Protein backbone atom coordinates (compact mmCIF):
# COMPACT_ATOMS: atom_id res chain seq x y z
CA UNK A 1 0.00 0.00 0.00
CA UNK A 2 1.61 3.29 -1.08
CA UNK A 3 1.43 6.36 1.07
CA UNK A 4 -0.04 8.98 -1.22
CA UNK A 5 -1.68 12.29 -0.59
CA UNK A 6 -2.38 13.15 -4.21
CA UNK A 7 -5.77 12.14 -5.48
CA UNK A 8 -7.32 12.80 -2.07
CA UNK A 9 -9.10 16.06 -2.84
CA UNK A 10 -10.69 17.95 0.00
CA UNK A 11 -14.08 19.32 -0.91
CA UNK A 12 -14.64 21.14 2.36
CA UNK A 13 -12.48 23.07 4.80
CA UNK A 14 -13.69 20.75 7.57
CA UNK A 15 -12.27 17.82 5.66
CA UNK A 16 -9.03 19.73 5.21
CA UNK A 17 -8.82 20.69 8.86
CA UNK A 18 -9.08 17.23 10.39
CA UNK A 19 -6.11 15.89 12.32
CA UNK A 20 -5.18 13.33 9.68
CA UNK A 21 -6.00 14.61 6.21
CA UNK A 22 -4.39 11.56 4.63
CA UNK A 23 -6.47 8.38 4.86
CA UNK A 24 -3.45 6.13 5.23
CA UNK A 25 -2.66 8.02 8.42
CA UNK A 26 -6.16 7.44 9.68
CA UNK A 27 -5.84 3.73 9.02
CA UNK A 28 -2.45 3.66 10.73
CA UNK A 29 -3.72 5.45 13.81
CA UNK A 30 -6.73 3.16 14.17
CA UNK A 31 -4.40 0.21 13.88
CA UNK A 32 -2.04 1.63 16.50
CA UNK A 33 -4.93 2.38 18.83
CA UNK A 34 -6.01 -1.19 18.41
CA UNK A 35 -2.55 -2.46 19.25
CA UNK A 36 -2.18 -0.16 22.24
CA UNK A 37 -5.63 -0.77 23.69
CA UNK A 38 -6.17 -4.44 22.86
CA UNK A 39 -3.09 -6.32 21.70
CA UNK A 40 -0.57 -4.93 24.22
CA UNK A 41 -2.70 -5.53 27.32
CA UNK A 42 -3.35 -9.08 26.16
CA UNK A 43 0.18 -10.02 25.23
CA UNK A 44 2.80 -7.85 26.95
CA UNK A 45 4.51 -9.38 30.01
CA UNK A 46 4.48 -7.71 33.42
CA UNK A 47 8.02 -6.39 33.15
CA UNK A 48 7.15 -4.48 30.01
CA UNK A 49 4.19 -2.83 31.70
CA UNK A 50 5.76 -1.95 35.01
CA UNK A 51 9.28 -1.09 34.00
CA UNK A 52 8.73 0.45 30.58
CA UNK A 53 5.21 1.12 29.33
CA UNK A 54 3.71 2.78 32.40
CA UNK A 55 6.63 5.13 33.06
CA UNK A 56 6.84 5.76 29.33
CA UNK A 57 3.16 6.74 29.12
CA UNK A 58 3.21 8.98 32.17
CA UNK A 59 6.41 10.71 31.19
CA UNK A 60 5.22 11.24 27.64
CA UNK A 61 2.16 12.92 29.12
CA UNK A 62 4.41 15.22 31.12
CA UNK A 63 6.59 15.81 28.07
CA UNK A 64 3.47 16.63 26.08
CA UNK A 65 2.55 19.24 28.66
CA UNK A 66 6.04 20.69 28.65
CA UNK A 67 6.08 20.71 24.87
CA UNK A 68 3.07 23.02 24.82
CA UNK A 69 5.08 25.51 26.83
CA UNK A 70 8.54 25.10 25.32
CA UNK A 71 7.74 23.82 21.87
CA UNK A 72 4.64 25.84 21.03
CA UNK A 73 4.98 28.97 23.15
CA UNK A 74 8.79 29.09 23.22
CA UNK A 75 9.11 29.55 26.97
CA UNK A 76 11.85 27.29 28.35
CA UNK A 77 11.01 25.88 31.76
CA UNK A 78 13.06 23.80 34.18
CA UNK A 79 10.38 23.75 36.86
CA UNK A 80 8.57 20.74 35.46
CA UNK A 81 9.53 18.41 38.28
CA UNK A 82 8.18 20.84 40.83
CA UNK A 83 4.87 21.13 39.00
CA UNK A 84 4.57 17.34 38.83
CA UNK A 85 5.09 17.34 42.58
CA UNK A 86 2.34 19.92 43.01
CA UNK A 87 0.00 17.69 41.03
CA UNK A 88 0.89 14.59 43.01
CA UNK A 89 0.71 16.15 46.46
CA UNK A 90 -2.41 18.10 45.48
CA UNK A 91 -4.24 14.94 44.52
CA UNK A 92 -2.89 13.21 47.63
CA UNK A 93 -4.20 15.90 49.94
CA UNK A 94 -7.67 15.83 48.42
CA UNK A 95 -7.86 12.08 48.89
CA UNK A 96 -6.62 11.98 52.49
CA UNK A 97 -8.53 15.00 53.67
CA UNK A 98 -11.89 14.51 51.95
CA UNK A 99 -13.38 11.09 52.56
CA UNK A 100 -14.52 9.22 49.47
CA UNK A 101 -13.18 11.82 47.08
CA UNK A 102 -13.32 10.23 43.60
CA UNK A 103 -9.89 9.24 42.33
CA UNK A 104 -10.19 10.50 38.76
CA UNK A 105 -11.40 13.88 39.99
CA UNK A 106 -8.52 14.02 42.45
CA UNK A 107 -5.98 13.35 39.71
CA UNK A 108 -7.52 16.04 37.53
CA UNK A 109 -7.65 18.45 40.45
CA UNK A 110 -3.96 17.77 40.93
CA UNK A 111 -3.61 19.17 37.43
CA UNK A 112 -5.67 22.21 38.40
CA UNK A 113 -3.46 22.96 41.39
CA UNK A 114 -0.41 22.63 39.19
CA UNK A 115 -2.00 24.96 36.64
CA UNK A 116 -2.54 27.64 39.29
CA UNK A 117 1.04 27.37 40.56
CA UNK A 118 2.32 27.17 37.01
CA UNK A 119 0.61 30.43 36.06
CA UNK A 120 2.13 32.07 39.13
CA UNK A 121 5.58 30.88 38.19
CA UNK A 122 4.90 31.95 34.61
CA UNK A 123 4.47 35.60 35.49
CA UNK A 124 8.21 36.38 35.27
CA UNK A 125 8.10 35.17 31.65
CA UNK A 126 6.33 38.43 30.80
CA UNK A 127 9.61 40.17 31.44
CA UNK A 128 12.36 37.58 31.34
CA UNK A 129 13.25 35.66 28.20
CA UNK A 130 15.12 32.63 26.96
CA UNK A 131 17.85 31.10 29.07
CA UNK A 132 17.35 33.71 31.77
CA UNK A 133 13.79 32.48 32.11
CA UNK A 134 14.94 28.88 32.04
CA UNK A 135 17.22 29.41 34.99
CA UNK A 136 14.65 31.56 36.76
CA UNK A 137 12.14 28.69 36.59
CA UNK A 138 14.59 26.67 38.65
CA UNK A 139 13.51 28.90 41.51
CA UNK A 140 10.10 27.27 41.22
CA UNK A 141 11.67 23.81 41.12
CA UNK A 142 13.77 24.25 44.22
CA UNK A 143 11.02 26.03 46.08
CA UNK A 144 8.65 23.11 45.50
CA UNK A 145 11.31 20.60 46.55
CA UNK A 146 11.74 22.55 49.74
CA UNK A 147 8.09 23.23 50.41
CA UNK A 148 7.07 19.57 50.30
CA UNK A 149 9.85 18.66 52.69
CA UNK A 150 9.32 21.49 55.10
CA UNK A 151 5.59 22.30 55.16
CA UNK A 152 4.38 19.20 56.95
CA UNK A 153 0.74 20.10 56.41
CA UNK A 154 1.19 19.32 52.72
CA UNK A 155 2.32 15.79 53.54
CA UNK A 156 -0.41 15.20 56.10
CA UNK A 157 2.16 15.59 58.89
CA UNK A 158 4.16 12.53 57.96
CA UNK A 159 7.33 12.55 60.02
CA UNK A 160 9.60 11.93 57.05
CA UNK A 161 7.86 14.01 54.38
CA UNK A 162 7.02 10.89 52.41
CA UNK A 163 3.43 9.98 51.60
CA UNK A 164 1.53 6.80 50.77
CA UNK A 165 -1.63 6.40 48.76
CA UNK A 166 -4.21 3.64 48.95
CA UNK A 167 -4.79 1.26 46.06
CA UNK A 168 -6.43 2.85 43.02
CA UNK A 169 -10.18 2.46 42.93
CA UNK A 170 -12.36 3.99 40.23
CA UNK A 171 -16.07 3.62 40.96
CA UNK A 172 -15.64 0.08 42.25
CA UNK A 173 -13.09 -0.94 39.64
CA UNK A 174 -9.82 -1.44 41.53
CA UNK A 175 -6.92 -0.76 39.21
CA UNK A 176 -4.12 -3.03 40.34
CA UNK A 177 -2.93 -5.49 37.71
CA UNK A 178 -0.15 -4.01 35.57
CA UNK A 179 -2.32 -4.26 32.46
CA UNK A 180 -5.13 -2.34 34.15
CA UNK A 181 -2.75 0.34 35.32
CA UNK A 182 -1.32 0.57 31.84
CA UNK A 183 -4.78 1.01 30.34
CA UNK A 184 -5.64 3.54 33.02
CA UNK A 185 -2.66 5.67 32.00
CA UNK A 186 -3.25 5.03 28.31
CA UNK A 187 -6.74 6.48 28.55
CA UNK A 188 -5.43 9.64 30.21
CA UNK A 189 -2.61 10.00 27.73
CA UNK A 190 -4.78 9.47 24.66
CA UNK A 191 -7.35 11.91 25.96
CA UNK A 192 -4.84 14.65 26.68
CA UNK A 193 -2.99 14.04 23.44
CA UNK A 194 -6.25 14.68 21.59
CA UNK A 195 -6.97 17.79 23.67
CA UNK A 196 -3.51 19.20 23.06
CA UNK A 197 -3.71 18.46 19.37
CA UNK A 198 -6.98 20.39 19.17
CA UNK A 199 -5.60 23.29 21.16
CA UNK A 200 -2.49 23.71 19.07
CA UNK A 201 -4.61 23.60 15.90
CA UNK A 202 -6.97 26.19 17.32
CA UNK A 203 -6.42 29.93 17.45
CA UNK A 204 -5.00 29.71 20.97
CA UNK A 205 -2.33 27.45 19.53
CA UNK A 206 -1.62 29.98 16.81
CA UNK A 207 -1.29 32.67 19.47
CA UNK A 208 1.29 30.57 21.30
CA UNK A 209 3.27 29.90 18.15
CA UNK A 210 3.06 33.55 17.12
CA UNK A 211 4.55 34.59 20.46
CA UNK A 212 7.23 31.95 20.02
CA UNK A 213 8.15 32.92 16.47
CA UNK A 214 7.99 36.73 16.59
CA UNK A 215 6.51 38.30 19.67
CA UNK A 216 6.53 41.87 18.36
CA UNK A 217 4.61 40.94 15.22
CA UNK A 218 2.25 38.93 17.40
CA UNK A 219 1.53 41.98 19.54
CA UNK A 220 0.92 44.07 16.41
CA UNK A 221 -1.75 41.68 15.13
CA UNK A 222 -3.46 42.08 18.48
CA UNK A 223 -2.24 39.10 20.48
CA UNK A 224 -1.83 39.85 24.18
CA UNK A 225 1.51 38.37 25.32
CA UNK A 226 0.16 38.21 28.88
CA UNK A 227 -2.76 36.03 27.89
CA UNK A 228 -0.87 33.91 25.39
CA UNK A 229 2.06 33.17 27.68
CA UNK A 230 0.10 32.62 30.86
CA UNK A 231 -2.48 30.43 29.11
CA UNK A 232 0.40 28.35 27.77
CA UNK A 233 1.83 28.08 31.28
CA UNK A 234 -1.60 27.16 32.59
CA UNK A 235 -2.44 24.46 30.07
CA UNK A 236 1.05 23.02 30.12
CA UNK A 237 1.18 22.97 33.91
CA UNK A 238 -2.25 21.37 34.06
CA UNK A 239 -1.15 18.45 31.92
CA UNK A 240 2.15 18.19 33.78
CA UNK A 241 0.27 18.20 37.07
CA UNK A 242 -1.96 15.34 35.96
CA UNK A 243 1.13 13.47 34.83
CA UNK A 244 2.64 14.13 38.23
CA UNK A 245 -0.34 12.74 40.08
CA UNK A 246 -0.31 9.66 37.82
CA UNK A 247 3.41 9.23 38.53
CA UNK A 248 2.74 9.33 42.24
CA UNK A 249 -0.42 7.27 42.33
CA UNK A 250 -0.04 4.76 39.52
CA UNK A 251 3.70 4.32 39.17
CA UNK A 252 5.14 4.93 42.66
CA UNK A 253 2.22 4.60 45.09
CA UNK A 254 4.40 6.01 47.86
CA UNK A 255 7.01 8.63 47.36
CA UNK A 256 9.41 11.20 48.80
CA UNK A 257 9.74 14.73 47.38
CA UNK A 258 12.98 13.68 45.68
CA UNK A 259 10.86 11.68 43.24
CA UNK A 260 10.13 15.01 41.54
CA UNK A 261 13.52 16.66 41.80
CA UNK A 262 15.44 18.69 39.26
CA UNK A 263 16.69 15.63 37.40
CA UNK A 264 13.09 14.99 36.40
CA UNK A 265 12.87 18.51 34.99
CA UNK A 266 15.95 18.03 32.87
CA UNK A 267 14.85 14.58 31.78
CA UNK A 268 11.56 16.01 30.52
CA UNK A 269 13.18 18.93 28.73
CA UNK A 270 15.39 16.34 27.08
CA UNK A 271 12.41 14.35 25.89
CA UNK A 272 10.82 17.44 24.41
CA UNK A 273 13.91 18.55 22.54
CA UNK A 274 15.10 15.15 21.37
CA UNK A 275 11.54 14.28 20.42
CA UNK A 276 10.86 17.51 18.64
CA UNK A 277 9.80 20.96 19.81
CA UNK A 278 6.32 21.92 18.75
CA UNK A 279 5.18 18.42 17.94
CA UNK A 280 2.65 16.37 19.89
CA UNK A 281 4.04 13.20 18.39
CA UNK A 282 7.55 14.35 19.25
CA UNK A 283 6.79 14.23 22.96
CA UNK A 284 6.14 10.52 22.64
CA UNK A 285 9.23 9.88 20.55
CA UNK A 286 11.30 11.77 23.07
CA UNK A 287 9.84 9.92 26.05
CA UNK A 288 10.45 6.59 24.37
CA UNK A 289 14.00 7.55 23.56
CA UNK A 290 14.85 8.72 27.07
CA UNK A 291 12.98 5.97 28.90
CA UNK A 292 13.82 2.96 26.80
CA UNK A 293 17.32 3.69 25.52
CA UNK A 294 19.17 3.64 28.85
CA UNK A 295 17.40 0.44 29.87
CA UNK A 296 18.29 -1.27 26.62
CA UNK A 297 21.86 0.02 26.70
CA UNK A 298 22.19 -1.18 30.26
CA UNK A 299 20.92 -4.66 29.48
CA UNK A 300 23.06 -4.90 26.37
CA UNK A 301 26.25 -3.81 28.09
CA UNK A 302 25.56 -6.18 30.96
CA UNK A 303 24.66 -8.94 28.54
CA UNK A 304 28.00 -8.33 26.83
CA UNK A 305 29.59 -9.33 30.11
CA UNK A 306 30.72 -6.00 31.54
CA UNK A 307 30.28 -5.66 35.28
CA UNK A 308 27.42 -3.42 36.31
CA UNK A 309 29.56 -0.41 37.23
CA UNK A 310 31.45 -0.46 33.94
CA UNK A 311 28.17 -1.12 32.15
CA UNK A 312 26.44 1.91 33.61
CA UNK A 313 29.44 4.12 32.91
CA UNK A 314 29.35 2.97 29.31
CA UNK A 315 25.60 3.50 29.28
CA UNK A 316 26.12 7.09 30.40
CA UNK A 317 28.73 7.66 27.73
CA UNK A 318 26.78 6.10 24.89
CA UNK A 319 23.60 7.83 26.00
CA UNK A 320 25.35 11.18 26.09
CA UNK A 321 26.95 10.66 22.70
CA UNK A 322 23.67 9.54 21.16
CA UNK A 323 21.95 12.68 22.40
CA UNK A 324 24.64 14.83 20.82
CA UNK A 325 24.54 12.69 17.71
CA UNK A 326 20.78 13.10 17.30
CA UNK A 327 20.96 16.82 17.90
CA UNK A 328 23.56 17.01 15.16
CA UNK A 329 21.68 14.89 12.62
CA UNK A 330 18.33 16.47 13.31
CA UNK A 331 18.28 19.48 15.63
CA UNK A 332 14.51 19.58 15.20
CA UNK A 333 14.09 16.22 16.83
CA UNK A 334 12.91 12.75 16.00
CA UNK A 335 9.47 14.04 15.00
CA UNK A 336 11.12 15.89 12.11
CA UNK A 337 12.85 12.72 10.98
CA UNK A 338 9.44 11.06 11.04
CA UNK A 339 7.83 13.74 8.86
CA UNK A 340 10.79 13.70 6.49
CA UNK A 341 10.30 9.94 6.24
CA UNK A 342 6.65 10.49 5.33
CA UNK A 343 7.65 13.08 2.70
CA UNK A 344 9.94 10.51 1.16
CA UNK A 345 7.14 7.95 1.14
CA UNK A 346 4.87 10.40 -0.62
CA UNK A 347 7.35 10.98 -3.40
CA UNK A 348 8.43 7.37 -3.64
CA UNK A 349 9.55 5.97 -6.05
CA UNK A 350 10.46 9.36 -7.45
CA UNK A 351 13.30 11.00 -5.48
CA UNK A 352 12.00 14.54 -5.96
Amino acid at each position, binding site marked *: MFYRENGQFKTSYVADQQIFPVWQDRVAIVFLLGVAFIAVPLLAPEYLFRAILIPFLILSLAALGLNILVGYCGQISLGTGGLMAVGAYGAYNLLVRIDGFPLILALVMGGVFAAVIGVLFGIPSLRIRGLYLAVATLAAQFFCDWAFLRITWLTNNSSSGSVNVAGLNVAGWSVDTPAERYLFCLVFVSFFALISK*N*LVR*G*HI*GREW*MAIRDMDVAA*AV*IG*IRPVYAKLSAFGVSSFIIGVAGSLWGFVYLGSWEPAAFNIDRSFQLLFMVIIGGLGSVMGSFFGAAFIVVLPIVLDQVTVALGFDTALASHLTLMIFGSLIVFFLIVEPHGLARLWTLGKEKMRLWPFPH
Partner: protein
Amino acid sequence: MSVSRRKHGEVILDVRNISLSFGGVKALTDISFDIREREIRAIIGPNGAGKSSMLNCINGVYTPQQGSITFRGQTFAHMDSRRVAEMGVARTFQNLALFRGMNVIENLMGGRNLKMRSNLLQQAFNIGFARREEVEHRRFVEGIIDFLEIQPYRKMAVGKLPYGLQKRVDLGRALSMEPQVLLLDEPMAGMNVEEKQDMCRFILDVNEQFGTTIVLIEHDMGVVMDISDRVVVLDYGKKIGDGQPYEVRENPDVIRAYLGTAN
Protein backbone atom coordinates in the same frame (compact mmCIF):
# COMPACT_ATOMS: atom_id res chain seq x y z
CA MET B 1 -4.33 69.91 -0.04
CA SER B 2 -6.59 71.30 -2.75
CA VAL B 3 -6.05 69.22 -5.85
CA SER B 4 -5.78 65.45 -5.62
CA ARG B 5 -6.31 62.52 -7.90
CA ARG B 6 -9.07 61.15 -5.75
CA LYS B 7 -11.56 62.59 -3.30
CA HIS B 8 -10.35 61.89 0.23
CA GLY B 9 -12.31 61.68 3.45
CA GLU B 10 -11.65 63.16 6.86
CA VAL B 11 -8.38 62.96 8.79
CA ILE B 12 -8.39 59.47 10.28
CA LEU B 13 -4.98 59.45 11.96
CA ASP B 14 -3.30 62.56 13.31
CA VAL B 15 0.27 62.50 14.63
CA ARG B 16 1.22 65.48 16.80
CA ASN B 17 4.74 66.51 17.96
CA ILE B 18 6.02 62.96 18.42
CA SER B 19 9.51 62.73 19.94
CA LEU B 20 11.25 59.44 20.63
CA SER B 21 14.73 58.61 21.87
CA PHE B 22 16.65 55.53 23.01
CA GLY B 23 18.90 56.46 25.88
CA GLY B 24 20.64 59.52 24.47
CA VAL B 25 19.95 58.80 20.80
CA LYS B 26 17.11 60.88 19.34
CA ALA B 27 15.16 58.77 16.84
CA LEU B 28 12.28 61.23 16.23
CA THR B 29 12.05 64.92 17.02
CA ASP B 30 8.72 66.70 17.13
CA ILE B 31 7.11 64.99 14.15
CA SER B 32 3.58 65.99 13.13
CA PHE B 33 1.49 64.94 10.15
CA ASP B 34 -1.97 63.66 9.40
CA ILE B 35 -3.46 60.86 7.36
CA ARG B 36 -6.80 61.11 5.57
CA GLU B 37 -9.25 58.34 4.91
CA ARG B 38 -8.72 56.29 1.74
CA GLU B 39 -5.50 58.07 0.77
CA ILE B 40 -2.11 56.53 0.12
CA ARG B 41 0.33 58.38 2.36
CA ALA B 42 4.04 57.80 1.82
CA ILE B 43 6.77 58.34 4.38
CA ILE B 44 10.18 58.65 2.77
CA GLY B 45 13.67 59.49 3.89
CA PRO B 46 17.21 58.16 3.90
CA ASN B 47 18.20 55.20 6.05
CA GLY B 48 18.00 55.91 9.75
CA ALA B 49 15.64 58.81 9.15
CA GLY B 50 13.28 57.25 11.70
CA LYS B 51 10.56 56.03 9.35
CA SER B 52 10.15 52.62 10.95
CA SER B 53 10.36 54.14 14.41
CA MET B 54 7.44 56.35 13.36
CA LEU B 55 5.32 53.32 12.50
CA ASN B 56 6.46 51.57 15.66
CA CYS B 57 5.11 54.53 17.61
CA ILE B 58 1.81 54.39 15.76
CA ASN B 59 1.15 50.78 16.61
CA GLY B 60 2.56 50.85 20.07
CA VAL B 61 5.77 48.90 19.69
CA TYR B 62 7.65 51.96 20.95
CA THR B 63 6.36 54.56 23.38
CA PRO B 64 7.24 58.14 22.36
CA GLN B 65 8.50 60.43 25.13
CA GLN B 66 6.43 63.33 23.86
CA GLY B 67 3.52 63.97 21.55
CA SER B 68 0.17 62.36 20.91
CA ILE B 69 -1.56 60.31 18.27
CA THR B 70 -5.21 60.91 17.45
CA PHE B 71 -7.18 58.13 15.78
CA ARG B 72 -10.76 58.84 14.74
CA GLY B 73 -10.99 61.61 17.30
CA GLN B 74 -9.56 59.58 20.19
CA THR B 75 -6.22 60.93 21.38
CA PHE B 76 -3.52 58.76 22.94
CA ALA B 77 -0.18 59.68 24.47
CA HIS B 78 0.92 56.08 23.95
CA MET B 79 -0.76 53.48 21.80
CA ASP B 80 -1.37 49.98 23.12
CA SER B 81 -0.70 47.44 20.36
CA ARG B 82 -3.86 45.56 21.14
CA ARG B 83 -6.04 48.69 21.04
CA VAL B 84 -4.45 49.78 17.79
CA ALA B 85 -5.17 46.41 16.25
CA GLU B 86 -8.75 46.49 17.50
CA MET B 87 -9.19 49.95 15.98
CA GLY B 88 -8.31 48.45 12.63
CA VAL B 89 -4.68 49.34 12.05
CA ALA B 90 -2.63 46.60 10.42
CA ARG B 91 1.04 46.53 9.59
CA THR B 92 3.72 44.83 7.54
CA PHE B 93 7.36 44.79 8.50
CA GLN B 94 10.55 46.05 6.91
CA ASN B 95 12.60 42.91 7.47
CA LEU B 96 10.03 40.14 7.51
CA ALA B 97 8.45 39.38 10.85
CA LEU B 98 6.46 36.37 9.75
CA PHE B 99 5.78 33.44 12.07
CA ARG B 100 8.41 31.22 10.54
CA GLY B 101 7.32 28.10 12.33
CA MET B 102 3.82 28.25 10.81
CA ASN B 103 2.58 27.66 7.29
CA VAL B 104 0.95 30.29 5.07
CA ILE B 105 -2.62 29.57 6.12
CA GLU B 106 -1.70 29.64 9.81
CA ASN B 107 0.09 32.96 9.37
CA LEU B 108 -2.96 34.48 7.74
CA MET B 109 -5.30 32.89 10.25
CA GLY B 110 -3.13 34.59 12.84
CA GLY B 111 -4.42 37.85 11.45
CA ARG B 112 -7.96 36.67 12.21
CA ASN B 113 -7.23 35.92 15.86
CA LEU B 114 -8.71 39.20 17.06
CA LYS B 115 -12.03 38.21 15.56
CA MET B 116 -12.12 34.67 16.94
CA ARG B 117 -14.24 34.17 20.03
CA SER B 118 -14.28 30.49 20.96
CA ASN B 119 -12.78 29.86 24.41
CA LEU B 120 -10.16 27.41 25.56
CA LEU B 121 -12.51 24.56 26.37
CA GLN B 122 -14.45 24.85 23.12
CA GLN B 123 -11.19 24.64 21.24
CA ALA B 124 -9.87 21.84 23.42
CA PHE B 125 -12.80 19.63 22.51
CA ASN B 126 -13.09 21.18 19.04
CA ILE B 127 -16.86 21.24 19.40
CA GLY B 128 -19.48 22.96 17.26
CA PHE B 129 -18.83 26.64 17.71
CA ALA B 130 -15.02 26.46 17.66
CA ARG B 131 -15.11 24.26 14.56
CA ARG B 132 -17.62 26.45 12.71
CA GLU B 133 -15.65 29.57 13.61
CA GLU B 134 -12.45 28.00 12.34
CA VAL B 135 -14.09 27.13 9.03
CA GLU B 136 -15.66 30.51 8.47
CA HIS B 137 -12.42 32.37 9.09
CA ARG B 138 -10.60 29.88 6.92
CA ARG B 139 -13.00 30.83 4.14
CA PHE B 140 -12.10 34.50 4.53
CA VAL B 141 -8.39 33.72 4.56
CA GLU B 142 -8.72 31.63 1.40
CA GLY B 143 -10.23 34.72 -0.18
CA ILE B 144 -7.10 36.69 0.61
CA ILE B 145 -4.92 33.84 -0.63
CA ASP B 146 -6.71 34.01 -3.95
CA PHE B 147 -6.42 37.79 -4.03
CA LEU B 148 -2.66 37.60 -3.48
CA GLU B 149 -2.33 34.67 -5.90
CA ILE B 150 -0.44 32.44 -3.49
CA GLN B 151 -2.75 29.40 -3.64
CA PRO B 152 0.03 26.88 -4.38
CA TYR B 153 1.95 27.75 -1.22
CA ARG B 154 -0.99 27.45 1.22
CA LYS B 155 0.54 24.67 3.30
CA MET B 156 4.20 25.52 2.97
CA ALA B 157 6.17 26.73 5.98
CA VAL B 158 6.69 30.43 5.31
CA GLY B 159 10.37 30.09 6.15
CA LYS B 160 10.80 28.01 2.99
CA LEU B 161 9.17 30.54 0.63
CA PRO B 162 11.21 32.89 -1.57
CA TYR B 163 11.60 36.44 -0.29
CA GLY B 164 9.08 38.03 -2.63
CA LEU B 165 6.38 35.60 -1.62
CA GLN B 166 7.14 36.06 2.06
CA LYS B 167 6.52 39.77 1.55
CA ARG B 168 3.14 38.87 0.07
CA VAL B 169 2.29 36.63 3.01
CA ASP B 170 3.26 39.48 5.31
CA LEU B 171 0.81 41.69 3.42
CA GLY B 172 -1.75 38.91 3.50
CA ARG B 173 -1.49 38.62 7.27
CA ALA B 174 -2.13 42.34 7.58
CA LEU B 175 -5.06 42.21 5.13
CA SER B 176 -6.69 39.30 6.94
CA MET B 177 -7.20 41.73 9.82
CA GLU B 178 -9.61 43.66 7.53
CA PRO B 179 -7.75 46.88 8.41
CA GLN B 180 -9.02 50.41 7.87
CA VAL B 181 -5.47 51.71 8.02
CA LEU B 182 -2.63 49.66 6.60
CA LEU B 183 0.96 50.52 7.50
CA LEU B 184 3.42 49.15 4.95
CA ASP B 185 7.10 49.23 5.92
CA GLU B 186 9.11 48.99 2.68
CA PRO B 187 6.86 46.38 1.06
CA MET B 188 9.03 46.32 -2.07
CA ALA B 189 12.52 46.32 -0.54
CA GLY B 190 14.76 43.89 -2.33
CA MET B 191 12.24 42.97 -5.02
CA ASN B 192 12.83 42.72 -8.74
CA VAL B 193 10.80 44.80 -11.18
CA GLU B 194 8.01 42.27 -11.78
CA GLU B 195 7.59 41.60 -8.08
CA LYS B 196 7.43 45.33 -7.47
CA GLN B 197 4.77 45.74 -10.14
CA ASP B 198 2.70 42.96 -8.58
CA MET B 199 3.06 44.52 -5.15
CA CYS B 200 2.06 47.96 -6.47
CA ARG B 201 -0.99 46.40 -8.07
CA PHE B 202 -1.97 44.74 -4.81
CA ILE B 203 -1.54 47.96 -2.87
CA LEU B 204 -3.62 49.98 -5.31
CA ASP B 205 -6.30 47.25 -5.46
CA VAL B 206 -6.51 47.14 -1.68
CA ASN B 207 -6.78 50.88 -1.57
CA GLU B 208 -9.49 51.03 -4.26
CA GLN B 209 -11.48 47.83 -3.62
CA PHE B 210 -11.59 47.96 0.19
CA GLY B 211 -11.03 51.72 0.50
CA THR B 212 -8.23 51.01 2.93
CA THR B 213 -6.10 53.95 4.01
CA ILE B 214 -2.47 53.15 3.35
CA VAL B 215 0.67 54.49 4.99
CA LEU B 216 3.67 53.50 2.93
CA ILE B 217 7.38 53.60 3.69
CA GLU B 218 9.33 53.18 0.48
CA HIS B 219 12.77 53.93 -0.89
CA ASP B 220 11.88 53.59 -4.58
CA MET B 221 11.07 57.18 -5.52
CA GLY B 222 9.49 56.09 -8.77
CA VAL B 223 6.94 53.98 -6.96
CA VAL B 224 6.31 56.62 -4.33
CA MET B 225 5.70 59.34 -6.89
CA ASP B 226 3.41 57.11 -8.93
CA ILE B 227 1.09 55.68 -6.32
CA SER B 228 1.09 57.97 -3.31
CA ASP B 229 -1.28 60.90 -2.82
CA ARG B 230 0.76 62.74 -0.21
CA VAL B 231 4.31 62.33 1.03
CA VAL B 232 6.05 63.03 4.35
CA VAL B 233 9.82 63.34 4.24
CA LEU B 234 11.92 62.56 7.33
CA ASP B 235 15.63 63.09 7.78
CA TYR B 236 17.59 62.38 10.95
CA GLY B 237 14.29 62.09 12.83
CA LYS B 238 13.07 65.49 11.71
CA LYS B 239 10.30 66.28 9.25
CA ILE B 240 11.74 68.19 6.33
CA GLY B 241 8.89 68.04 3.87
CA ASP B 242 5.19 67.25 3.58
CA GLY B 243 2.80 67.51 0.64
CA GLN B 244 1.84 66.09 -2.70
CA PRO B 245 4.54 64.25 -4.64
CA TYR B 246 5.32 67.12 -7.00
CA GLU B 247 5.53 69.61 -4.14
CA VAL B 248 7.91 67.40 -2.22
CA ARG B 249 9.96 66.77 -5.33
CA GLU B 250 10.67 70.51 -5.60
CA ASN B 251 11.40 70.96 -1.89
CA PRO B 252 15.08 72.07 -1.57
CA ASP B 253 15.65 70.40 1.84
CA VAL B 254 14.40 67.15 0.41
CA ILE B 255 16.67 67.44 -2.57
CA ARG B 256 19.59 68.18 -0.28
CA ALA B 257 18.77 65.28 1.92
CA TYR B 258 18.41 62.99 -1.04
CA LEU B 259 21.29 64.36 -3.06
CA GLY B 260 22.78 61.36 -4.77
CA THR B 261 20.55 58.92 -2.96
CA ALA B 262 17.43 59.74 -4.99
CA ASN B 263 16.92 57.64 -8.12
